């Protein structure tokens, strides 16, 4: 039992944190979001570093690392709120790697790992993250099926959401069925989004903690008032709960696939709610400032709202969990 990252994983995390801190501070996020464009320079750099292919097998041009390592990167992506098509690209790659046919893997994975193509994945009929401009799109339907559309056969209608740090779109078009285990694809994608949400929570907590140590009211740092300090403690608790569930699910994806379905549902049930409430709490703890565009917490709140809905919200996940629980107590 060793419930912590390995030294290598810690190193990946540290490197990713440092890189994004220098390349994608909030000023850069703001600039890209307000301009309605993704951060191309950053995306190129991430591609050169091999981020899109971190969890793609080596035979398809990736690093062959696992969901834990991918989660580490996505957590840092959420922490930085960076404006790149990384999420959609890795989600599509995950789905094709684990839910595609051999032919689909060979056709798409090398170009997704290199970043030559970007990808997207979402629910059929829904709002799909990183769909605009994607070279390949995976659509999952509620009946448990999935299909794969080449970018040029997908009709993508760009959709402006409350989250301007990412491009979203609705997708129409036929495509071909995913040739493999679609459920595994969906579960892994869910865990990956949960990882981004954990990073979002962590950043919201840190921004808030720093702010309430500095900001004074009634001659006292507001972080000394229990109304604020207990709010921060609550934020930490929710963040840690989401983290535990998400790390477990990522580990299960790599090492205990029979527990992946439950892990994925737990991860999004925890991280979806945590993402929304922790970032809302961050706005509240910032007071009037938190309600302004100038403060950075709103980027986190907005992305958390989208993330929590992309692949079935927390309510959907709890219903799944209850079904699994019922099956267990019936056995």
């Amino acid at each position, binding site marked *: 039992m060793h419930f912590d990252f390995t030294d290598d994983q810690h190193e990946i995390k540290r490197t990713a944190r440092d890189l994004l801190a220098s390349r994608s501070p909030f000023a850069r996020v703001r600039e890209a979001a307000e301009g309605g464009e993704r951060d191309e320079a950053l995306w190129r750099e991430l591609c050169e570093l091999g981020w899109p292919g971190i969890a793609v097998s080596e035979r398809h041009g990736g690093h062959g690392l696992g969901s834990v390592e991918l989660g580490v990167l996505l957590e840092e992506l959420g922490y930085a709120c960076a404006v790149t098509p990384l999420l959609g690209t890795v989600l599509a790659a995950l789905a094709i790697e684990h839910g595609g046919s051999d032919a689909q893997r060979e056709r798409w994975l090398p170009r997704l790992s290199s970043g030559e193509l970007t990808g997207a994945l979402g629910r059929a009929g829904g709002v799909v993250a990183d769909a605009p401009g994607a070279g390949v799109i995976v659509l999952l339907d509620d009946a448990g099926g999935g299909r794969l559309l080449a970018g040029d056969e997908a009709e993508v209608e760009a959709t*402006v*959401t409350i989250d301007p740090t990412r491009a979203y779109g609705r997708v129409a078009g036929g495509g071909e069925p995913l040739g493999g285990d679609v459920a595994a694809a969906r579960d892994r994608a869910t865990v990956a989004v949960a990882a981004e949400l954990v990073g979002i929570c962590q950043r919201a907590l840190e921004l808030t903690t720093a702010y309430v140590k500095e900001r004074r*009211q*009634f001659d006292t740092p507001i972080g000394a008032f229990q109304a604020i300090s207990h709010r921060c403690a609550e934020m930490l608790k929710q963040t840690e709960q989401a983290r535990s569930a998400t790390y477990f699910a990522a580990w299960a994806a790599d090492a205990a696939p029979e527990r992946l379905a439950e892990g994925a549902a737990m991860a999004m049930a925890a991280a979806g709610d945590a993402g929304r409430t922790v970032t809302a709490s961050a*706005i509240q703890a910032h007071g*009037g400032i938190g309600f*302004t565009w100038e403060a950075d917490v709103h980027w986190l709140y907005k992305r958390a709202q*989208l993330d929590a809905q992309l692949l079935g919200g927390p309510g959907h996940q709890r219903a799944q969990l209850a079904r699994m629980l019922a099956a267990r107590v019936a056995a």
Partner: protein
Amino acid sequence: MDLTFDEHEAAFRDELRAWLEVNRPGPEPAGEDARWAWRMDWHRRLASGRWAGVHWPVEYGGRGATYTQSAIFFEELGRAGAPLPGDALGLLLAGPTLMAWGSEELRQRLLPTILAGSEPWCQGFSEPDAGSDLAALRTKATRDGDEWVIEGQKVWTSNAQYAKWCMLIARTGSDSPKKHHGLTYFVMDMEQPGLQIRPLRQITGESEFNELFIEGARVPHDHVVGGVGNGWKVTLTTLMNERAGLGFFLQVRLRQQVDALAAEAAARGLLDDPRVADRLGDLHMRAEAIRLTAYRGLTSTEKHGQPGPEGSVTKWMWSEASQELAQLAVDVLGPDALVEGTAWAHELLRSRGNSIEGGTTEVLKNIVAERVLGLPRR
């Protein structure tokens, strides 16, 4: 206990409803300036029907409406989908404050323009380092002959870019930032050099508020309200009026939003989902309870001059319910409710401010604890 309107109240409501039937504000236009013009047009239309300042005494051109009638006014406005009058700050805050504390001259000069909607107001209370803590205000007024010279900065100043007048509170005495005394309440002309207005963009992308930089603005001495050094008391009058009628307007909006979400959920067959029904049933009850609680506060105010314990919780109840409703809409409608430009997406963001502006929920809880429950302060 009688929860029906008496004949005077019913007559007032019926007259207003009839008037609102034929006098509509028209659709809300896009763009900030256009929206402001639209709301000021509406203000003047209301004034033309004697529906601006209904709670003002007859001698000042109002209808001398009772608290209940005033509540009915805002409820009906909300029910009709009409906006608040453009210069609600003048009608609700500046007017009553001038009536209580202003010189005869100021009242003569300013009250008619407020009613007519010809000289709108803004409110210069909050400062960057004095959010809920008025004692920490730093904006300074220095006497210079018959005038005062103002230096400082205000924030959360809505309508500053359109206002003719500003209710300004500034420090005229003791330098100690802990002191409530040493504050003075001024009526400041916004049409002068020495003022810079910078819009404050919200998380919705809109700019309802501004920062106001004051560098050597001048106010004649006879624009002091309530006497030099008495600003704290005068400000309390303004703040006490702040939530009086507004609550009824907001409460109706919430009621309409609950109904709207129920209709959208029903249209998608989602009201049959017991989880959705449970949360909507809860919000339905809470919306009604807010209205009922607000009316209990009104009765108490009419009987005792001030609301009872219930008066301090309606705004808090409303902000919580409005936020939960918006989140429920997202849960029910999915990402559709997160698409920019839709009503729910806007509400999801805008409602985050509801628990901050007009007294953060934290401050409201302090008030309940200290003033209603008599708990000690640290």
